[in-house]
């Protein structure tokens, strides 16, 4: 097979000689074929003051490989990408994180409050990018 493909360079760069970094598009590398997005909510209440309120949302994607995932918490219309921590003085904090396997994405939200019962009620939006078509 010959060396073939296509590339589009950024403005001001010669598409025949510029580096890949100066390309808007190049077929040299695999492209993501599609994706899916959705929303979720995690809510939980701590059993006692000083103990964490922890909840999880598990997405069984069953793709058989680890996809590229971006997850955001939503607060008053603003998106915050996780992992994320929120501190409220010396007595309160929240943490959001995720781990992804070949078949699952597990999103965890946890809040601890040292002067009151902690609770979590957070809305999320997630984006999963696929490497394969026919999803």
């Amino acid at each position, binding site marked *: 097979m010959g060396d073939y493909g296509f590339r589009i360079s950024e403005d001001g760069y010669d598409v025949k000689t510029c580096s890949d970094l100066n390309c808007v598009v190049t077929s040299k590398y695999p492209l993501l074929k599609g994706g*899916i*997005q*959705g*929303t*979720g*909510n*995690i809510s*939980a209440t701590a059993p006692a003051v000083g103990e964490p309120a*922890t*909840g*999880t*949302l*598990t*997405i*069984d*994607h*069953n793709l058989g490989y680890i996809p590229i995932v971006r997850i955001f918490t939503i607060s008053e*219309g603003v998106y915050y990408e996780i992992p994320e921590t929120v501190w409220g003085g010396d007595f309160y904090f929240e943490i959001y994180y995720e781990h992804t396997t070949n078949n699952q994405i597990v999103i965890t939200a946890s809040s601890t409050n040292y002067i009151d019962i902690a609770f979590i009620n957070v*809305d999320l939006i997630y984006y999963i990018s696929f490497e394969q078509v*026919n*999803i």
Partner: protein
Amino acid sequence: MILFYSKITGDIFATIGGRVHSDKQLEMSIKTSHLSDEQVGKYIIGWIEKDGQKIEYNTDKFSLLEEFESTSLINPMDYKINLETGNLEKKNAIA
């Protein structure tokens, strides 16, 4: 859109976006730490693709789906499934 809800309370806790869903998407599931697999229900608005055919689900709720997809602040979590009727309703509309 596939809405995932608690079969105990009817509360919606997650969604998968889209209008036409393939088998692969239908095989995906979402659960929370306080519900078992059996306690999670699915409510579909749109179509599923099966054997080359599109099967319709709850398309009377299509305008609501468009609201969910828009950038407005109408959130599927503000709705729930009425466990008696199986209908999708705004939370405060259910007694």
